[in-house]
């Protein structure tokens, strides 16, 4: 379907039909429509957004969204105690043709067979890559754990057995694709490699997480038409009760956006609405990427109070059921941090079993145990571990089970509320903010607080007497499910978070700049922590931003019109950060203890701002990754506008981090081999050789910019407004 040399015929057809449709609309539609009494106004737009990736294995269309949006406002006469009563709404529908036109990348024919790294294989004369679902044959030679039921290979699924009949080596893609880097902290012990199914959940249910990441083909193509009625983007009532002296009480009730921040691209205080990152990672305007929520907002606008030129008190209550950020599902073009891909890979692991590249050391303490126990592992030679091998796991061992049953959902039982005081004092705008909400990014509770998992080194004694010896060595029975410290088995949680913050803006004459500052402290946020048996821990976090907006003349570019130069520096500090360094890499919390993100926007205007060139840069100082977004917008007239731009990523972004694969979760089978650093009988989780890799936790250090290194794009928008 995909054409490497240019747009395929269907693409041209779609472009053509869209152009015809827009032309017809332009002749049929009027400017903003008003009712005769002007109490009702309707406006909107129809547009096409096309993104093309040009420099990656997934080059081709990443977006061809055709969207229509209708906005309306209905004003009524003042009634009763109300001085204002109005009703507002935004309805939106879109169709992303990329899922049909490039269905081999994103749609129902996407994905294929995958081969996973087995870096320790060649040292033993074995292959360096093995296929998904590899068997313990001389040709594949993956580590196939006994729990995958190797003794009945070739038959139908057996208990937790990995069965290619239900999880075939097809419709898959490697996590982090071409960004995968096998150079771990120790030679031969490269990063683990995961694979995830790519097709929509109605085509391939593997790895889909019910109620969280379970979009079918139509959900992807028509994202607003889901069970949350996102086509009804905003719908709220505004009512105002005036008081003597000019103060007033305003209510805004319904699905809406509540904007608390003063920043672009990244958010500090602006945490009320979750974000849909699946639209375009972090690069969509917040106006479009915020997910409007059902919110009751009451504001007392006191006006002038004492020495304050303006004072305002706001209370908000989110009465719509909790929604986290939309991160993008495995197989979608935009999955921020690769999280959706990772989650789908891990969910597949839990429910179907999986083959993981570079997982088990090619020599372990367990493998050197005398027979019959040693028979449970492949014959890998003797001596020290020299590398890691692809490993096939049974179901219910590692992975993501699903969203925790205690997922917040009740507006009354589990309310999210906020308070804000905002005002103006001697020309300085300020706010104090409080928000009691749920973390909108998922937290993975694993190991000792994760789902109860089986021991994959055990097998059914009824099938093979060796299995009995394995049970004896482990001290537990086959299929015993229990929470196992440090095990990479997770449930998804959205913990409670409390945020206190403040902001200010003011003008500094000497700098000829307006300054924006925000500061927020949160408690309750959870982060991955491979040093904890549950693989996560809480940390208080301080975030801040300083923004400087300065109109600046660049006279050789435009002698009569200044350019807006907007610089933002974001900082984040984890107050309870934990990190250690091992020979195999860093372990603990992959998030940086301190990080600085810098953004720079330069925007000019020519021909009465009908031509607007913009240059956006963002730099992640710790990840050493950068995005450059040049664009140029041309307004043909009031109705037609076009934007051509690019989103180019640069930088290293290769950040390795411990993945706890060497955390010795199943002693004695996972004890390090003799002669290996850290060998000997070690407590669970206390392996000296924490092994690091890019996937999955290096992603947290690479950040949203670094993780999108392979997503450089050319972007085009054509819009007709009415």
């Amino acid at each position, binding site marked *: 379907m995909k054409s490497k040399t240019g747009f395929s015929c269907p693409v041209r057809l779609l472009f053509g039909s869209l152009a015809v449709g827009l032309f017809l609309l332009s002749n049929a539609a009027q400017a903003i429509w*008003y009712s005769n009494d002007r109490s009702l106004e309707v406006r909107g737009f129809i547009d096409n957004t096309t993104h093309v990736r040009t420099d990656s294995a997934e080059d081709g269309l990443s977006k061809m969204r055709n969207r229509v949006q209708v906005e309306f406002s209905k004003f009524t006469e003042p009634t009763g105690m109300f001085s204002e009563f109005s009703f507002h709404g935004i309805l939106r529908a879109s169709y992303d043709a990329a899922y049909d036109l490039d269905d081999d990348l994103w749609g129902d024919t996407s994905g294929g067979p995958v081969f996973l790294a087995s870096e320790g294989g060649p040292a033993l004369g074995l292959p360096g890559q093995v296929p998904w679902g590899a068997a313990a044959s001389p040709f594949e030679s993956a580590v196939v754990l006994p729990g995958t039921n190797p003794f009945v290979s070739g038959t139908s699924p057996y208990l937790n057995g990995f069965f290619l009949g239900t999880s075939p080596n097809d419709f898959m893609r490697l996590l982090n694709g071409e960004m995968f880097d096998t150079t771990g902290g120790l030679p031969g012990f490269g990063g683990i490699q995961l694979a995830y199914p790519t097709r929509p959940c109605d085509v391939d249910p593997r790895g889909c997480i019910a109620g969280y990441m379970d979009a079918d083909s139509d959900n992807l193509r028509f994202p607003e038409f889901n069970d949350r009625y996102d086509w009804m983007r905003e719908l709220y009532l505004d009512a105002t009760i005036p008081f003597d002296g000019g103060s007033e009480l305003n209510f805004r009730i319904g699905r809406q956006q509540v904007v608390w921040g003063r920043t672009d691209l990244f958010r500090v205080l602006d945490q009320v609405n979750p974000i849909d990152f699946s639209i375009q990672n972090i690069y969509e305007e917040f106006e479009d990427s915020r997910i409007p929520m059902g919110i009751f907002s009451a504001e007392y606008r006191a006006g*002038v109070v004492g020495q304050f*030129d303006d004072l305002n008190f706001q209370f908000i209550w989110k009465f719509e059921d909790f929604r986290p950020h939309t991160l993008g599902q495995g197989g979608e073009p935009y999955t921020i941090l690769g999280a959706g891909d990772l989650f789908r890979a891990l969910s597949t692991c839990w429910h179907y079993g999986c083959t993981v590249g570079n997982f088990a050391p090619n020599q372990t303490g367990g493998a050197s145990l005398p027979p019959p126990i040693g028979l449970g592992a492949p014959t890998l030679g003797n001596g020290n571990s020299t590398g890691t091998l692809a490993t096939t796991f049974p179901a219910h061992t590692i992975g993501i089970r699903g969203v925790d049953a205690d997922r917040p959902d009740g507006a009354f039982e589990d309310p999210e509320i906020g308070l804000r005081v905002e005002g103006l004092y001697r020309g300085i705008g300020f706010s104090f903010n409080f928000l009691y909400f749920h973390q909108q990014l998922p937290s993975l509770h694993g190991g000792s607080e994760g789902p109860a998992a089986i021991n994959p080194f055990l097998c059914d004694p009824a099938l093979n007497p060796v299995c009995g010896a394995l049970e004896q060595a482990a001290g537990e029975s086959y299929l015993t499910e229990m929470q196992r410290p440090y095990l990479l088995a997770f449930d998804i949680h959205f913990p409670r978070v409390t945020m206190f913050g403040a902001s200010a803006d003011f*003008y500094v004459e000497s700098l000829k700049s307006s300054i924006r500052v925000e500061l927020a402290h949160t408690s309750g946020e959870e982060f991955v922590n491979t040093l904890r048996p549950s693989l996560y821990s809480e940390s208080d976090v301080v975030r801040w931003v300083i923004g400087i*907006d300065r109109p600046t003349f660049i006279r050789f570019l435009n002698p009569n019109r200044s350019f807006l130069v907007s610089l933002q520096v974001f900082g984040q500090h984890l107050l309870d950060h934990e990190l250690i360094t091992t020979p195999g890499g860093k372990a603990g919390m992959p998030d940086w203890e301190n990080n600085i993100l810098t953004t720079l926007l330069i925007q000019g205007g020519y021909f009465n701002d009908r031509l607007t060139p913009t240059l956006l840069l963002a730099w992640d100082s710790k990840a050493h990754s950068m995005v450059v977004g040049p664009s140029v917008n041309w307004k043909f007239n*009031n*109705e037609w506008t076009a934007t051509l731009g690019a989103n180019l990523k640069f930088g290293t972004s290769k950040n390795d981090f411990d993945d706890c694969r060497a955390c010795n979760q199943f002693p004695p089978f996972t004890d390090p081999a003799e002669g290996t650093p850290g060998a000997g009988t070690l407590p669970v989780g206390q392996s000296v050789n924490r092994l690091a890799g890019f996937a999955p936790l290096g992603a947290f250090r690479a950040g949203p910019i670094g993780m999108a290194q392979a997503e450089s794009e050319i972007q085009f928008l054509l819009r007709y407004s009415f």
Partner: protein
Amino acid sequence: MKKLILTTAATCVVLAAGPVQPAEIAEEVIQQSFHPYTDWTPEFPGYTPGMTVNAQNADTFEAIMDEALFYFVKNGWVEVETAPTTEFPLSEKYIAATRQNGDVALTEAGTLTNYVAGRAFPAEPDPNDPDAGQKLVWNYQYGFNSGDSETIYPFWWTFRNVDTGKVERVIKFEWHFLNYKHRVEFEPIPEYEENPGQIFRGIYSLVKEPFDLANTQLLIHRYDDDTKRDDAWLYLGFQRRVRRLAAGQTTDAFLGTDLMIEDFEGYNGRVTDYSWEYGGSRNLLLPFYNHNEMALSDQPADDPTGYRFVDVHGKGNCFPAVTYQLRKTHTLIGTPKDPNHPIGRRVINLDAETMTMASLITYDRKGDMWKWFPIGKTHSDNHIPENQGKGVALDDFAVLLDIQANHCTTLQFKSIITDEDNQPNLFNVQQLRKRGR
């Protein structure tokens, strides 16, 4: 002890005399300032009201056209229809307040002392007075062209290509102006008591159309202390948030129009940002007319009161289709103190009777003529019923014509002198959020 006795005695004298009364302006000065046409009509050799000034006779009448208008007429861009000079009497309340301004004076910083309301310096400008320019600009700054408060709606800003006449864009606004201080018409007089920031004037605007700019709002606070920088905020609909404007953004094209925020009403900034010089007085043809007597546009077609805008004509449809009067003006030349200011100087022609800006020519930093900004004026008695008796020389039409870019933005609108919506709670940052969508 002796000093104490003297001080006490002085205090007793003051108390016995009661509050100090401000010195009054001589009535002759008042009459000359506010009613120059009572016994006098401007004249110019060969000029007869009712005649048409065009390319053929432009050279003859060069002296009664500002430099830009002469250029346009001479080059056939527009023909000027003329009409007799008429009086534009300002509100008696404003004139009455002016009578109390005998003690108004300039400080060393160029600001005012002892000023309450009315025209600060009603006396005829003296060419030998080094402060004449500074006094004139204060007369403009505290002028009465918007009354104490004004609403402008509908308000259409149309981008036009001068060469082709093509309409590129139309931005539709509503605008509101409120004087917090120095008020004479609407209560409270002379000022709002609850004004901790000592705001002099608030300006608020909301974009209604087109879609890409809809819900954009601008708020400006100008402080009574002219040395204090204006505060300005912009609510951007596509960002759903308020951004504080840096001062430099007031000297940039506003929303892509040919106007900068600093151009609003002729000059919209701090007096102390410029050095002001009096450039003499002369009689000029100015677009002063009676709105209801003009051949009007057919827009806005849907105005419920049937109000119609002043029409456009001439090259690129960049000129008002109105009659011009020969009127006495004072020329005010402003030079920005900021060396990085995009403008080299402003030449403002103040209408002597109303002290409103009748025309403005801006020159770029090289000294070349850059933009022409005449504001068409109608008297409030010749406008919509709500404006009857308000005593205001109403802004009724304007165009910002960029001579170098051959581009113009015409401003067609309906001014309403009213305090109905223009209360302080409309002019605060929360209002931007409240009305923001």
